[in-house]
């Protein structure tokens, strides 16, 4: 770790600086929401529905209210009476018929009906958490249990129970994207068509830190403070105040302190923090709530859960002619904050992948079921798209007898910018470079020998490819708006230079594991030529930060970092004016280099710190023309998405006797544009790969089709990947800098989870191909692999 030879600064851009935040995280000094306590605080416990679908006939709270320590109990009726609204959805999708999507009400506490196991029915506030929990057991809810539906593939069939009366056949929307006529025409003339039925398995996010919130109301200020484990506190505040509680936005401060992982699940506005914020004023007490792990399983928004039919039309040489995709996407029981956009805007627009497929059409049906709401989870729509594209390509290659790398090369996009038929314009990329690097590192040439050697040990070895692309750096606000977003997607940054020349950065991005305190400090240190130690990064507080759209979609450095760059430009521009005055030169003669303001072509110069001091002690200062102080804010709205892309090559060994699959080699060559901190990027890739391998081999949320109970509701049945489930990764980066943001960066947070599932699954299929196996569902558990082998042999 340490210095980067290309930077003039030891902790500048390109250095693997050790993470500043790790000192506190690793020594127990992290400050997570559950670490925050106030004298006299009370505790909330949410009573949840034990049924997937039921009418609430009555709720009796008398006995519970009389239990020791109880401060108050509220139900849906109390919220309705107080005119508390429903939780909003932030993205409007318009149906093919031109109708808006169906938006059933999402009350923070159930009203009349419960719609999934874990749905909130009542909240008990008490002096202690245990008292709240004890009292909740005394609440008598009389349910009339209704038939439920959980399976996305069949929920829209006639005769299935209706989750919401306003959504016939459980359809939220049917959305089409692309040129259907052109696609149908291309298919009718194609030499070969490859077809796949895909179930993209439902995942449960499982952040280490469970969701938590502490809500306070101050009578003296008539203002609220909410501490919450969240990825975008300004968005949380906006949605909560404007859409649900009707509170003045400026009277609510939302603080997301240290957050222990999110993966998307902490983007959303949830019922629990909304209810306790409202209740904090009602009971005039600070209220704390921390989810227990069983609650995380049944109330954090889940991910994925698609049923897809996908087809690829090719000519006889393996050139892609067209792609046709029909997907049913499970949205769960209610529309979570960005649920509607994930299987549409963030999915169908990625179906071109890295290829020149000229015509693509996707039809997506958003489906309500009696399950936990589904929303963005690491990759959000793009892993689902990548799985469709890369599995189709791998299967087509197998069917046509073309090598996996060759079929990809034949179809790669090679000239940029490139406008895809699904609405995106890729600014830059070099797909051949990442494929060549991955091929070399993976020693693909040596694979046949490794396969033979494995066979001698009784193991079946296979190799799988995935050449993924993603759209990150969400997003040009006008484009997002035209596509239905009900929010902007810019970012804000403020640079506060202190009189002594040290700097505090206020960013609207939010770090919940990404290491922004380090990466952003490296950018500032490099740009201002000051020591990395003199830069602190503040995030996650609406009371301190001008504004922010938060962190998701690998947007922090590309969008948040760009806002910081813009603010730094303003700092330097002002610094030049101050320096010109002090050095008695013209503004235009001042250059800023390596932390010094210089009169060009002379040896007259001032260090950054001297100029900063002068800005705050303006004795020799152009006060007639320039305000004192050195503090600048910038907002950055991107002009395009960024397009990280790469090639992954996975090798597995299957034990045909037991069905156990072991990932024995994994190579990822990624193009994330310029890289600020290689160590952090590598860590992000590792984490993403583990999640992707988890999806491919281990993880699945399973509902009982009869009762609608979540069968995989704890770690006893939900298989999280562990360190020994993955090999030592070999990761590489190739660089084509992003052309439209000042840092040339693209984003790296999700790539691992996006690229890896098809590589792993294709490797498993390759291992079994001599048995005639051509497809394999996720997760490829030992049981499923064994069954597949049995069926192939039968």
């Amino acid at each position: 770790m340490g210095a980067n030879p290309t930077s003039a600064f030891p902790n500048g851009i390109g250095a693997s600086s050790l993470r500043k935040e790790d000192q506190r995280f690793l020594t127990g000094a992290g400050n997570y929401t559950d670490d925050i306590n106030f004298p006299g605080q009370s505790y909330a416990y949410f009573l949840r529905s034990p049924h997937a679908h039921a009418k609430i006939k009555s709720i009796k709270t008398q006995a519970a209210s009389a239990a020791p320590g109880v401060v108050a109990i509220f139900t849906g009726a109390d919220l309705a009476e107080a005119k508390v609204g429903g939780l909003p959805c932030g993205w409007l999708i318009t149906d093919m018929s031109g109708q808006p999507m169906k938006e059933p009400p999402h009350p923070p506490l159930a009203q009349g009906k419960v719609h999934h196991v874990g749905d909130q029915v009542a909240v008990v506030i008490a002096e202690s958490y245990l008292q709240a929990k004890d009292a909740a057991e005394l609440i008598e809810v009389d349910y009339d249990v209704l038939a439920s539906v959980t399976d996305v593939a069949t929920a829209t069939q006639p005769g299935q129970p209706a989750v919401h009366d306003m959504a016939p056949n459980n359809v939220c929307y049917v959305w089409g994207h692309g040129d259907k006529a052109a696609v149908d025409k291309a298919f009718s003339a194609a030499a070969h068509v490859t077809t796949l039925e895909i179930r993209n398995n439902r995942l449960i996010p499982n952040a280490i830190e469970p969701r938590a919130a502490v809500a306070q109301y101050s009578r003296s200020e008539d203002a609220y403070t909410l501490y919450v484990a969240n990825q975008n506190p300004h968005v949380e505040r906006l949605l909560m105040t404007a859409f649900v509680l009707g509170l003045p936005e400026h009277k609510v401060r939302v603080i997301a302190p240290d957050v222990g992982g999110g993966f998307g699940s902490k983007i959303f506005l949830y019922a629990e923090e909304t209810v306790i914020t409202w209740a904090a004023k009602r009971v005039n007490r600070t209220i704390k709530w921390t989810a227990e792990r069983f609650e995380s399983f049944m109330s954090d928004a889940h991910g994925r859960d698609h049923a897809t039919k996908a087809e690829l039309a090719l000519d006889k040489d393996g050139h892609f002619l067209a792609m046709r995709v029909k997907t049913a996407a499970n949205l769960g029981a209610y529309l979570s904050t960005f649920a509607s956009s994930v299987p549409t805007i963030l999915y169908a627009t990625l179906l071109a992948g890295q290829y020149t497929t000229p015509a693509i059409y996707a039809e997506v049906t958003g489906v309500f079921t009696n399950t936990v709401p589904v929303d963005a989870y690491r990759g959000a729509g793009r892993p689902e798209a990548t799985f469709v594209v890369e599995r189709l390509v791998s299967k087509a290659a197998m069917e046509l007898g073309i090598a996996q790398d060759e079929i990809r090369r034949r179809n790669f996009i090679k000239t940029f910018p490139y406008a895809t038929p699904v609405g995106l314009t890729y600014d830059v990329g070099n797909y051949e470079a990442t494929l060549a690097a991955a091929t070399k590192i993976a020693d693909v040439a040596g694979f046949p020998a490794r396969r033979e050697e494995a066979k001698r040990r009784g193991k079946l070895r296979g190799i799988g490819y995935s050449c993924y692309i993603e759209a990150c750096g969400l997003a040009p606000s006008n484009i997002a708006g035209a596509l239905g977003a009900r929010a902007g997607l810019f970012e804000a940054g403020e640079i506060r230079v202190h009189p002594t020349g040290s700097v505090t950065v206020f960013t609207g991005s939010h770090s919940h594991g990404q290491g922004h305190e380090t990466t952003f400090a490296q950018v500032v240190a490099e740009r201002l030529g000051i020591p990395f130690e003199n830069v602190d990064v503040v995030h996650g507080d609406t009371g301190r930060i001008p504004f922010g759209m938060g962190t998701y979609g690998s947007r922090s450095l590309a969008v948040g970092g760009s806002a910081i760059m813009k603010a730094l430009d303003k700092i330097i521009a002002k610094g030049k004016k101050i320096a010109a005055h002090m050095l008695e030169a013209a503004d235009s003669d001042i250059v800023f280099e390596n932390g010094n303001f210089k009169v060009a072509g002379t040896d007259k110069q001032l260090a950054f710190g001297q100029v900063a001091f002068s800005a705050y002690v303006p004795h020799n200062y152009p006060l007639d023309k320039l305000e004192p102080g050195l503090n600048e804010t910038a907002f950055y709205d991107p002009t395009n998405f960024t397009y990280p892309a790469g090639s992954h090559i996975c090798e597995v060994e299957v034990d045909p006797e037991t069905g156990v699959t072991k990932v024995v080699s994994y190579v990822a060559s990624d193009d994330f544009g310029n890289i600020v901190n290689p160590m952090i990027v590598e860590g992000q890739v590792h984490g993403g790969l583990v999640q992707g391998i988890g999806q491919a081999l281990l993880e699945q949320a399973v509902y009982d089709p009869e009762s609608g109970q979540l069968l995989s509701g704890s770690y006893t049945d939900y298989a999280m990947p562990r360190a020994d489930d993955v090999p030592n990764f070999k990761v590489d980066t190739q660089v084509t800098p992003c052309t439209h943001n000042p840092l040339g960066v693209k984003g790296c947070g999700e790539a691992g989870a996006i690229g890896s599932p098809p590589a792993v699954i294709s490797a498993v299929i390759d291992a079994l191909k001599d048995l005639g196996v051509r497809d394999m569902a996720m997760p490829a558990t030992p049981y499923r692999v064994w069954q597949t082998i049995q069926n192939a042999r039968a």
Partner: protein
Amino acid sequence: MYAFQYHRPGSLKEAAALLGKLGDGKALAGGQTLIATMKLRLAQPSDLVDLGAITELRGIKVEGDALMIGALTRHAEVAASAEVKKRIPALAVLAGGIGDRQVRAVGTLGGSVANNDPAADYPAGVLGLGATVITTQRKIVADDFFDGMYETALKPGELITAISFPLPKRAAYAKFPNPASRFAMIGVFVSQVANGSVRVAVTGAGGGVFRDAALEKALTANFTPEAVTSVKVSASGLSSDMHASAEYRAHLIGVMAKRAVVAALG
């Protein structure tokens, strides 16, 4: 967790007396099952009698033709014991494959066997070696001890003090871990004693640990992997769940039995 009274007796006699008179008391060993169950509010004992201070329940020693392991001996101690590794290495392997490092550092032999989780590892070792469970009241042979899912021959207030494992000629344990919990989805313990007779105990497959008579017969006749292959393990009575069908479990019993035989033959 609900409120309870906590006791920490210094002797076995005291512990037994306490449990005898407390209506709804439970012994606490490593707490790796009991505490979790209480946290989930699935168990609500009025009293916990912590056995932790009773040193006489701890330890590993050879007594004649048997290895005597105290009920409070931790999984990690069994896994690391030179005596166990020398006399019944299969038992050390079994203990070393339970849960994770933290669980092995606290979980105990007695707690595991008393709990009789249908997917626990130790019950396979106890039944597979034909061990004897020694309690505060009597000695119970393994064949009479396990009584289906979470049920044993223990009476209320009766405590396991030690387990006596007869030394086999050879033995091995092969475990196929559940991908999520890593308890045994199938675990097969195979042992052969001096006279050639073989015991095969299976855990994880159904309602509780059981012996497989067909495998025992085949292996008693011929202690080879081929003998295992000749037996078709029936799926009848085995459990089916999201992780494995009864048929897959039956298949895994065969595979794990074969691997155990190979390991036992060294």
